[in-house]
């Protein structure tokens, strides 16, 4: 799943690319399990997004700083070890912060370990770049991931529970769409976002083709 290496770019670019152009969820379609599983409310989505960002940031930093120390034969094993360590740490930290959140996220915190996004960034980027760039990359990707999760979590919570971040948005009489909190709703919402993005992309491409074809 590693992405092809890109030519050297500016630090801003490394940061920004994860937000939109190479958005891990909407463009690369990576790390789907947590995206779908914990996006039933905005709070869960935010927590999962931040946890993933943290793990990605820390493992990118460590991998980047150790990149000349790790022989390439054992690099995947080392990365997994590093990632698993930080996931374990996050697991305990979340439990210490809020037991309720910990219960809501359940096993999916542990499952950050197998989020191919993190291993992918470590392998494709951090192992080849300096600490600063690796941190920016992780932050960009992490924030992009978090934003995508919030996009899903927001829609699902608003329709499914009539609230956002636990704050009721509608009058009492609002009928929640239970399906949105259920697994089916997760699939449909993500499919909906992808549809929207594909549609916009198509429109933009069509427009640029038109521009090229239209004589000045």
């Amino acid at each position: 799943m590693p992405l092809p290496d890109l030519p050297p770019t500016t630090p801003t670019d490394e940061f920004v690319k994860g937000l939109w152009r190479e958005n891990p969820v909407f463009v690369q379609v990576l790390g789907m399990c947590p995206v779908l599983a914990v996006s039933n409310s905005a709070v869960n989505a935010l927590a999962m997004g931040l946890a993933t960002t943290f793990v990605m940031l820390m493992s990118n930093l460590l991998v980047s700083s150790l990149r000349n120390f790790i022989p390439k034969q054992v690099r995947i094993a080392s990365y997994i070890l590093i990632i698993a360590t930080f996931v374990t740490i996050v697991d305990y930290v979340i439990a210490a912060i809020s037991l309720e959140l910990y219960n809501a996220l359940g096993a999916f915190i542990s499952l950050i370990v197998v989020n191919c996004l993190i291993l992918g960034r470590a392998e494709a980027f951090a192992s080849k770049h300096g600490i600063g760039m690796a941190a920016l990359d992780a932050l960009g990707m992490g924030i992009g991931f978090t934003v995508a999760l919030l996009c899903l979590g927001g829609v699902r919570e608003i329709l499914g529970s009539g609230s956002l971040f636990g704050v009721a948005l509608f009058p009492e009489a609002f009928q929640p769409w239970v399906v949105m909190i259920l697994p089916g709703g997760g699939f449909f919402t993500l499919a909906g976002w992808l549809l929207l993005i594909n549609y916009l992309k198509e429109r933009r491409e069509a427009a640029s083709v038109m521009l090229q074809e239209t004589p000045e």
Partner: protein
Amino acid sequence: MTETTQPARPPVWPMYRSLVGIGVLCAVLIVLVFDGTRPIIARNRAEALERAVFTVLPDATRRVTFALVDERRFEPVTNGSGSLLHAGFDADDRLVGVAVEAGGMGYADTISLLYGYSPAAETIVGMQVLTSKETPGLGDKIQTDEDFLANFAALDVKLDETGTTLRHRIETVKQGTKSEPWQIDGITGATISSEAIGDILAASSAYWVPLIRRRLEDLETGGIDAAP
């Protein structure tokens, strides 16, 4: 992640060095965090448990956790796993009830709950669902429906003459048809979920109530001894 085959065997020492090094680093990090967060997590857990215990045992002000040892006597424990009971005491250190954890299959996934048993009244005096994935808006009424929760303020679990079995097994009936103290008035529209609660309670009480009655003094005295 395919590797081109190396003409010469790669040196082994750097591999050991890096793996062991990373391993040590990771171990240190984990142990530090684990150690740092352990008391906080334990306190969080204890507080959550305490809140739940005091909800199902409305008169209790203090809690002591017991474990069933050798299948026949209860001993107070501070930390443990397996079959645990939480005895609740009032301000005068009198045993007001026992909170028991129970679980079973609901409509969508397993439901776990805590219920309070009062040895004096021989009734269940409270019930709280700890985790459930029942359908929001429908099955989750077992957590929110006040009429349903009112069932558990006094639910008959008297033993028969032998002292080993319940006189009447707890059962869930159709909403509005409860006629006996050991019946639970179900929820229309959430029939399966409310029946699941009844089944979990029936199974758990049939096991625990005779045990608790037989070894009541363990709990009464043990609590005082263990009091901080």
